[in-house]
């Protein structure tokens, strides 16, 4: 039985969704930069306190997971379902690792009394309160995207193992990959803005 697949249509649909995501995070980036422009010194001091090593590790983890995702799609197109599933599993594992590092980072900050509305943070200058508010909401929203991505990737892994996604029908896996790479791109910008520019 021949089923109709609109390859271009579904890809353009996915891209339209991704572009709306770019505008969503873009709005937050504008908010960040205008507050940074108004409180340069407070932002400088607050950014100094973030853990740069954990941030760098997470960047490398996410970049590598993007590579695994691209390889997974490459191998499904070549008809090698086993390698495709293996690389998809690696992508999921690295996504979980990213969230694990994020968890460590957040708990360390919360133990130091630095969380929104905490007594210690309220006593600090206004710019630092803004910095941590943006830090938690932007990395939090990004983390939520990673979590959703891991869920969708897991569904794809099941579909590959069941043979529902194969060398003739791989558009769902490609679209999931597009989403995962976009989440990586957002982190590529979040990382220098919060951890590096001091």
């Amino acid at each position: 039985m021949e089923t109709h697949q609109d390859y271009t249509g579904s890809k353009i649909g996915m891209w339209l969704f991704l572009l709306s995501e770019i505008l969503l995070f873009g709005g937050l980036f504008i908010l960040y930069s205008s507050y940074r422009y108004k409180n340069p010194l407070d932002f400088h001091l607050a950014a100094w306190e973030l853990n740069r090593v954990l941030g760098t590790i997470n960047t490398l983890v996410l970049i590598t997971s993007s590579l695994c995702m691209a390889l997974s799609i490459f191998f499904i197109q070549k008809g090698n379902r086993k390698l495709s599933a293996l690389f998809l599993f690696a992508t999921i594992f690295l996504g979980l690792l990213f969230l694990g590092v994020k968890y460590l980072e957040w708990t360390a900050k919360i133990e130091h009394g630095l969380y929104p509305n905490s007594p210690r943070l309220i006593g600090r200058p206004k710019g630092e309160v803004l910095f941590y508010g943006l830090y938690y909401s932007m990395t939090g929203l990004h983390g939520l995207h990673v979590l959703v991505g891991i869920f969708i990737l897991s569904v794809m892994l099941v579909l590959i193992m069941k043979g529902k996604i194969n060398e003739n029908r791989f558009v769902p896996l490609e679209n999931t990959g597009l989403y995962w790479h976009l989440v990586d791109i957002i982190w590529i910008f979040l990382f220098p803005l919060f951890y590096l520019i001091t």
Partner: protein
Amino acid sequence: MESKKYQTYILVWLGLVILTGITVSMAGMNLGRLSIGIVLAIAAIKSGLVFSYFMHLKYETGLLFKLMIPIVLAALTIFIGLTFTDIAFR
């Protein structure tokens, strides 16, 4: 479609890792205001690599694909520009 090779992906990944290393070590040096520009330029190059190779934009043929992203980036640039003229001249 057949031009895609897995070696390309590994090279792109290597490029991303090297660029990450450059930004992190740049941040260690005290370059002042210049560092914001450099760090953002490197982030732009990195996202360009992901867009064109990992997300296959380099291999897409339709005019729509070639136009969509520049249009959205232009819209974002206009937003950023208007916001900053508002903040600077208020």
